[in-house]
C-alpha cells in the first residue's frame, strides 16, 4: 500500500479524487446545511406517470410524453446501429457486424438449449427485440440530458391544476405543500442548474410574494425520461410477449390442447381448479413482467437523482455503473423469461413430464 502511494500517478489520482470528493460533499445537499450547496440541484420532482412534453395535447386525447420520445430515440439508435452493422456484411465479421452477430449467436444457442433447434428460430426475433430494446433504452436512460433538460411547467399552471383538483374533491387547495423550483431566464427550454439546492419555494410563498425579476418558479418537465420508467412501456412489452407466447402455444398444440390447460372440465374438480390457477398465473406473469422492469429502472432513476442531490460530481459514478449492469440484467431477464414461457407453452404435456 505504501509502495503504491509513492508512485506519482497513483498519488495524483488519489489527491484529485479526494479534492473532488470534498468539493462534492461541500457543494451538495449535505454541505447546504453548513453554508455550501453551490453545486447541488434540487431533488427533481419525482412522479410515477410519464410527464407530458407539452401542456396542451397534440391531438384530442393524446399527448406525447417524455418516455415516448425516449422510446423513439432508442428505436432510432437501434435502427441506425443495425443499419450500419448489416449494410456491408462480410464473411469475416468486423466491428458492429461482429457485435450483433455475437449477440444473436449467443441468443440462438440459448434458445436452442431451452426450446430446441426448430422452435429457437421461431422465438428468436421477439426475444432478441425485447432484449435489444430494453437494454438500449436502459443504457440511453443514464445519459446526461435525460431528466435534466425540459420545459418548465409554470407556477401559475400548477396552482391552477391544484385548485381545480381540490375543487373537484370538495376541499381547499393546500398550496403550502406544493414545492416549486426556481429557474433562470424564461425560454421554452430550461436546464436544471447548478447551485440551486436551496432555491425552492412553496406555491403559497409564490402566491404571496411573487418572484424576483429574471427568474421563474415552476417544475421542470424533462423532454427525455428513461423509456422503462413508464408503466405503459413495460406493460406494452409484457402484453406483446404474452400474446405471442399464447399464439405460439395455440399454433403448436392446437386451440383445444392449449386452452385445455386453463379450462379443463373432464378430469374433475381438482383439475378444474388447477386450470383456473394456471390462468391466474398467466395474468400474474404479465404483472410481474411489467413491474419487475418498471420497478428496477425507476428505482435506478431515483437512486441516481438522490446521489446527485446528496453528493454531486462523484457520488453518482459507482451507481452509473450499477445502473448499466441492472439495465443489462433486466433486459436479459425479460427476454429469458419470454423464451422460457414460450418454450413451456409450446411443450406438450407428454414432453413436459421428462
Amino acid at each position, binding site marked *: 500500500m505504501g509502495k503504491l502511494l509513492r508512485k506519482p500517478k497513483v498519488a495524483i489520482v488519489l489527491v484529485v479524487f479526494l479534492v473532488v470528493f470534498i468539493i462534492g460533499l461541500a457543494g451538495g445537499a449535505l454541505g447546504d446545511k453548513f453554508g455550501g450547496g453551490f453545486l447541488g440541484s434540487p431533488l427533481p420532482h419525482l412522479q*410515477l406517470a410519464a410527464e407530458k412534453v407539452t401542456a396542451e395535447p397534440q391531438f384530442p386525447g393524446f399527448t406525447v*410524453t417524455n418516455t*415516448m420520445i425516449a422510446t423513439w430515440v432508442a*428505436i432510432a439508435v437501434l*435502427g441506425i446501429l443495425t443499419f450500419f452493422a448489416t449494410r456491408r456484411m462480410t464473411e469475416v465479421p468486423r466491428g458492429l457486424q461482429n457485435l450483433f452477430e455475437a449477440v444473436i449467436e449467443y441468443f440462438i444457442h440459448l434458445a436452442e438449449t431451452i426450446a430446441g433447434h426448430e422452435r429457437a428460430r421461431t422465438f*428468436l426475433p421477439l426475444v432478441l427485440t425485447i432484449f435489444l430494446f430494453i437494454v438500449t433504452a436502459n443504457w440511453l436512460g443514464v445519459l446526461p440530458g435525460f431528466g435534466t433538460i425540459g420545459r418548465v411547467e409554470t407556477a401559475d399552471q400548477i396552482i391552477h391544476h391544484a385548485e381545480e383538483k381540490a375543487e373537484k374533491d370538495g376541499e381547499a387547495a393546500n398550496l403550502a405543500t406544493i414545492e416549486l423550483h426556481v429557474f433562470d431566464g424564461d425560454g421554452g427550454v430550461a436546464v436544471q442548474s447548478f447551485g440551486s439546492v436551496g432555491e425552492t419555494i412553496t406555491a403559497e410563498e409564490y402566491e404571496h410574494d411573487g418572484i424576483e425579476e429574471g427568474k421563474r418558479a415552476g417544475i421542470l418537465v424533462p423532454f427525455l425520461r428513461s423509456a422503462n420508467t413508464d408503466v405503459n412501456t413495460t406493460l406494452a412489452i409484457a402484453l406483446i410477449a404474452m400474446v405471442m407466447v399464447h399464439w405460439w402455444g395455440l399454433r403448436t398444440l392446437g386451440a383445444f390442447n392449449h386452452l385445455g390447460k386453463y379450462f379443463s372440465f373432464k378430469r374433475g374438480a381438482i383439475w378444474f381448479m388447477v386450470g383456473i390457477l394456471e390462468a391466474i398465473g398467466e395474468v400474474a406473469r404479465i404483472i410481474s413482467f411489467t413491474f419487475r422492469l418498471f420497478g428496477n429502472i425507476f428505482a435506478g432513476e431515483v437512486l441516481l437523482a438522490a446521489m446527485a442531490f446528496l453528493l454531486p460530481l462523484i457520488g453518482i459514478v459507482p451507481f452509473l455503473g450499477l445502473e448499466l449492469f441492472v439495465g443489462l440484467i433486466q433486459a436479459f431477464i425479460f427476454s429469458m423469461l419470454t423464451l422460457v414461457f414460450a418454450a413451456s407453452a409450446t411443450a406438450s404435456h407428454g414432453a413436459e413430464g421428462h
Partner: protein
Amino acid sequence: MEALGINLPGLITQIVSFLILFGLLWMVLYRPITRMLDQRSAKIKESLETAEKVREESAKSKADMQKQIDAARTEGQALIAQAREVADRFRDEELAKARTEIQAARVRAEADIKRERDAAIEDLRREFAGMAVSAAEKIVERSLDKNTHKDLIDKVLKESSTVRRS
C-alpha cells in the same frame, strides 16, 4: 391506474412503437445476420467435409504407394534369390566339370605311367634274358641249342614274374 400513469393512448403508442421496432429489426438485423450465420456454418461444414475427403484420399494414396513399394521389394528379393541360385548352379557345374577333367587327366596319366612301366619292364626283361644267357653260357660253358635255351629262359622268367606279381 391513473396514479401509475397507465393510459390507453400511451399503451397503444408503446405497443405500436415496439411492433415497428420488431419489424425494423426483422428486416435490418435478423434476416441478414441469420442468413449470414447459416451461410457461414454451411461453408464451414463444407470445408470440413472437403478436408476430410482430402485426408482420406491422401491416406489412400499413401497406402497405394506403400503397396507398390512392398511389391517392388518382393520383386527385388526374388530377383536376388534367382541370381544367387543361378550363380550357385554355375559354380557347381564348373566345379563338377573341373573335377571330371582332373579325373580324366589322372586316369590318362596313370595309363601312361603303366604303359611306360610295362615297356620298361619288357626292355629290362629282354636285356636281362640276354645277360642271363650269356652269363649262363659262361657258367656252364656248354652250348645249348638256341630254341631249348629260349624255352628255358621263358620258363624261368614266367616263374619269376608270377612270383613277383603275386
